[in-house]
């Protein structure tokens, strides 16, 4: 593992509709690492991912996020993407009328423009689509349809990982990627994530259950509760949570 830092979240606080959800998050991610963020419902896991991706519905109340030397919070969502941040959504939206091809081409060419690169030719683009589709066994028929429209739960998640493969992010946040997946789909999705892993990129896996972590092995496991990371450990922490649930952590924190 490298010593340089990919992401440093420092005392991040954020709210929505005047209600503070994140109350001071600290997190450091280095290239090559896989971090799991676990925690009971309503602890702020999805909020953390949305805030990092720049959802304008949330207000950042304080803190800093350094993304390989860039002030992440100062960037628009699109520029965060161009800088190498990717969020795999828990509930990917359906966008009727926008074809996967046009969507992906617009995304890829915007990134290339940002990096001062020429747009891909139609042939190069379609070839890339084909290659990346195979990683998650995404059917060609899905790629020619509107974004996520009429996709099953499993197809939507595979489509997320397909987009991740296309954009080659430096940091991927997978928000509850396992929810709504049967065991076969889970294996395909996790297999795709593992295939895309290099020593230069990193992954944050947000999950409620240990199940996904059998397939995507974390280096660190964090427990998020009431808007703060209250416990950090190795993979064994996830197993302990699976066995004992979250109550003992809640008690630890609430009785402090």
């Amino acid at each position: 593992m490298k010593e340089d830092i990919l992401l440093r979240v420092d005392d991040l606080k954020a709210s929505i509709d005047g209600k503070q959800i994140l109350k001071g998050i600290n997190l450091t991610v280095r290239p090559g690492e896989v971090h799991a963020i676990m925690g009971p419902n309503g602890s702020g896991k999805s909020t953390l991912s949305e805030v990092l991706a720049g959802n304008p519905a949330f207000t950042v109340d304080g803190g800093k996020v350094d993304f390989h030397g860039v002030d992440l919070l100062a960037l628009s969502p699109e520029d965060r993407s161009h800088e190498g941040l990717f969020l795999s959504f828990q509930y990917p939206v359906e966008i009727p009328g926008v074809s996967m091809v046009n969507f992906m081409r617009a995304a890829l060419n915007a990134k290339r423009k940002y990096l001062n690169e020429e747009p891909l030719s139609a042939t190069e683009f379609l070839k890339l689509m084909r290659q990346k589709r195979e990683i998650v066994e995404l059917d060609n028929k899905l790629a020619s349809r509107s974004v996520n429209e009429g996709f099953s739960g499993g197809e939507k998640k595979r489509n997320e990982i397909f987009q991740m493969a296309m954009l080659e992010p430096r940091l991927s946040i997978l928000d509850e990627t396992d929810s709504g997946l049967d065991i076969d789909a889970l294996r395909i999705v996790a297999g795709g994530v593992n295939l895309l892993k290099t020593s230069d990129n990193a992954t944050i896996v947000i999950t409620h259950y240990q199940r996904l972590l059998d397939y995507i092995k974390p280096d660190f496991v964090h427990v998020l509760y009431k808007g703060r990371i209250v416990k950090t450990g190795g993979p064994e922490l996830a197993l302990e949570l699976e066995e004992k649930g979250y109550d003992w952590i809640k008690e630890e924190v609430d009785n402090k």
Partner: protein
Amino acid sequence: MGSIDQYIDLYLRHRAAFEQDAPEAMNSLRKRALEAIGHNALPEKGAEGYEKTSLEEMFAPDFGVNVNRVAVSADLAASFRCDVPNMSTLLGVCVNDTFYPTKGLQRLPEGVVFASMRTAAQEIPHIFDAYYGTLATLTRPEVALNTLLAQDGVVIYVPDGVTLEQPLQLVNIFSTPAPVLGVRRMLIVLGRGASAQLLVCDHTQPAAKECLSSQVIEIALGADARFEYYDIEESSESTSRVSSLFARQSKGSNLLVNGMTLTCGKTRNDYSIDIDGEGCDTTLAGMAIGTGTMHTDNSSVVRHLAPHCGSRQLFKYVLDDNATGAFEGSILVTPKAPFTEAYQSNKNVLASPTAKMHTRPQLEIYNDDVKCSHGATTGQLDKESLFYMRTRGIPEQEAKNMLMQAFMTDVIDTVRMESLRDRLKHLVEKRLAGAEAMCGECKATCHKVDEDGRD
């Protein structure tokens, strides 16, 4: 004194000139038109059916009328061409309100007419006299005024059993150094089992002054006839139009009307469709893309007068900046029309806080055996979709444009000609991206038509 009076005065002072060389059927109807106007004024904003659009105001400027039929140079007429790639059309051009056929029209199949009213009244008098003015109702002053002033127009006639393989195209152009009222009139008659497609494109030359198009379109479909009418308005901010389309369908006929307002000053479109025979199918679709201070008002009435017919109405608006839109649509199912299936939908996106939309879907049913629905929604672009696209790196404005384009997909999909559908997708995309909306690359001078009118 209302703004209609200046035109009545003009007519009364130059009656002889108005009637000179015009077909008898047109002249004989003027008296009735004049009586119908009587002391009525043009509707003002807020009048029943004209909630947001004042015709009084639209006709108020001192527009000129080409009473003496001064000809525009034929070269000018021939220099316009609205290209649709992969679609070869039989083209006619109407400059202001004078029709110019192209040489391509010599290729029209035997018996088919696409000509000026003056020509058609001589070639097919039995058709012209039997249909002219029979569909348009003179009760509305703007229709009566058009009938009073129209000196010529365009006739399309497809005889019984004839299928036109090649689409017809009519390009309406305003080209004028002074403010002008174009009095446009169209009569379309399809015989029993006949089939045709017509693409109408409205343009205004960039240098043209203020223009107003008053148009009345009458469409009569024989039994089992099929007709597609596409109307793309890409004029200019200084161009307004008041258009009334009347259609009557005989049994088993199929009618598609699609009106797309891409650029205009103020536009009022009235659609009145009588479904007057069993087993008809009717699609009435429309879209408006409003920016700046554009105003688009569509009003529709689809009357079901016979059993076992189906109609669908779909109108969509995207309004940005200070653009305004209005839609008043109705379905009328009479007691004579059991087993009717009729739907109407109006959906709108307001892309800026200052854009405004007025909508009023209506349904009147005097019959129990029907399936009908109607509805309207007005909202903003979906925030979640927008965020999702931005997280993939698509810049906000581009993402908005893509969503607006997607929003219009089902209106474009009503178009049955694939090449035109592709063209429209491209035009709408360009229009949403902020480009001056003009067909293809042509702006001031559209593409030349070569000797025989081919591409």
